[in-house]
């Protein structure tokens, strides 16, 4: 708006030139930013598009040659997944243990994070450090002992087994993230509530937890993320009853080779829950958070 008038009212001095150039820059910069962003989005989407493309093609079309979009559009692979209990139970199992893990992790991590953020106690620093080391334990290291442990206590091939196994990295992660958020809440809030006669549990549930709802949202997002994507422990600790979708997918190799279409459809369906979760926490992430202690 009004650019030409401005040129009129300012003389053609070098200073005016410089001003005009400064003004022009943000606009081109904006477009360059958009173009770069779009390029990256294309890079992210291309492999996913290819997966979707293949999931809507019949196996003969897939193997018949490369087609850029499904020419022989079919939902047969999705139909197969939704009608074959072997397949759809995979999703149910995965979602079950992920939900269990999220519930367990957040419930035990909340009070623990509160303790770390508010109190000093014997061994607090060492304990916190030890917790973080659990994040660094490669699941492969624990495969065999987990198998034996859960077999011995009779939890093998149950959802609880996977949910508990994922606690190994998810609880420390939750404590870590929540502690950061809680430290941002002034201690005076706690003191005022206690003076007002709130008991600790009532204060915690009614006042404190709502205050860090954003942090809980972000935490749940990360809990979901790391439990949903993990395969090694989940498939080792289960056989048939609690088998996650990810390991059902490894069984698509039939006598006639890999069933590409069904594999693609199953893969495409594993992306959906993640999208739903990000959609719910997007505002918490966009609000900005700073993880960890400073």
């Amino acid at each position: 708006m009004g650019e030409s008038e401005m040129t009129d009212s300012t003389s053609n001095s070098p200073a005016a030139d410089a001003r005009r150039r400064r003004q022009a820059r943000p606009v081109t910069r904006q477009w360059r930013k958009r173009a770069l962003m779009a390029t990256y989005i294309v890079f992210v989407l291309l492999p996913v598009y290819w997966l979707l493309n293949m999931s809507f093609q019949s196996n003969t079309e897939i193997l018949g040659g490369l087609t850029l979009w499904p020419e022989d559009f079919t939902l047969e692979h999705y139909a197969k997944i939704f009608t074959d209990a072997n397949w759809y139970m995979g999703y149910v199992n995965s979602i079950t243990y992920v939900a269990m893990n999220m519930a367990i992790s957040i419930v035990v991590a909340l009070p623990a994070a509160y303790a770390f953020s508010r109190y000093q106690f014997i061994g607090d620093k060492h304990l916190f450090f030890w917790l973080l080391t659990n994040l660094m334990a490669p699941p492969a290291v624990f495969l065999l002992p987990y198998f034996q442990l859960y077999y011995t206590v009779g939890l093998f091939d149950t959802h609880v087994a996977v949910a508990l196994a994922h606690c190994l990295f998810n609880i420390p992660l939750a404590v870590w993230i929540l502690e950061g958020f809680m430290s941002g809440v002034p201690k005076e809030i706690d003191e005022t509530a206690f003076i007002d006669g709130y008991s600790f549990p009532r204060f915690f549930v009614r006042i404190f937890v709502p205050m860090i709802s954003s942090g809980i949202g972000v935490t749940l997002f990360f809990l979901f993320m790391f439990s949903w994507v993990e395969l090694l422990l989940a498939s080792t600790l289960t056989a048939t009853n609690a088998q996650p979708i990810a390991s059902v997918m490894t069984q698509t190799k039939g006598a006639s080779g890999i069933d590409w279409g069904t594999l693609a459809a199953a893969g495409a369906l594993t992306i959906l829950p993640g999208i739903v979760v990000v959609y719910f926490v997007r505002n918490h992430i966009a609000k900005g958070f700073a993880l960890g202690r400073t």
Partner: protein
Amino acid sequence: MAEIALKSLAHSYLDAPGSPQDYAIREMDHVWHQGGAYALLGPSGCGKSTLLNIISGLLEPTRGDVLFDGERVNALPPEARNIAQVFQFPVIYDTMTVYDNLAFPLRNVKTPAARVHERVMEVAEVLELTPQLKRKAKNLTADEKQKVSMGRGLVRDDVSAILFDEPLTVIDPQLKWKLRRKLKEIHQRFEITMVYVTHDQLEASTFADKIAVMYEGQVVQFGTPRELFETPNHTFVGYFIGSPGMNFLEITLRDDRVRVGDSALEVEEGMRRAIEAAPSANVKLGIRPEFIEVHEAPVAGGIEASVEHIQDLGTYAIVDLRLGDTSLKARVEEDQSPPTGRAYLRFPAARLGLYVDEYRVEIDHDESP
């Protein structure tokens, strides 16, 4: 050096503003003269920060012009405007030392190192930051940080105006007056136009020579602190300035007499004529609590009111009065005993203001009181 003029300026944060409520700044004209110390006073949400951001170029106004010495600068970005701004919360570059913070605006335009050093030392001296120069800015106290933010505006010799957006919000009360005095000192020394945004009338009147009071996106009055107190141009200024604020009595004209509720009020002839001539039914009389005469016994021209509450504040008392449906506050000095039960009030003609549709109407006073 610049005179900053705003012509028919209006701003809305919406893409397609319709009603006046959509505007953060409603159409207004205003001039800040070179070298003045000004305050922009108003409640939160009145548009004062928006106005400040338009002057500094962080926002481009929806309509109207911003003129620096007559040159239209609407579309110029802040970096091209030779204006500095100090924000509500101190903005410092954490990783730099105080020295580098102060030098930053100069180095950005490739000022020779010797000149940078000279300016930084001079400004640090004025702001009493010399001992801190080598420290990391991150480790300063809030008031020191705020001084560093001001300093970044002062080091530039091309700066023609410094805008302050409630700069003392995070400063401890006992340091506030110190910083405010420092600001005044700087103003006198550098002769820079300063515009100081605040919602605190005391802060505004101690800093500024002239105060612009903003209300609902408009400057409703621009004047010295004394003018704002004695002759508020708008009922809002009356409410907002002074503690407690001005009293306003809704009046009607019945049987040729000026009435507050049912009580008749004696007024000057000039006032009566002005009330008669008022083009609207929204007519109010305004008087400051300080100027109401409170009597314990009936007096000539007095109007009777009931006493609701007395708040004793040591050297004076604030008396809450009720006149029909209208509540009034009056200030009674300690040498006078406050009334109980009933009181008889007189409003000195010279102190009574007439407000039609919230704006003050000048009236011709009678020759002698």
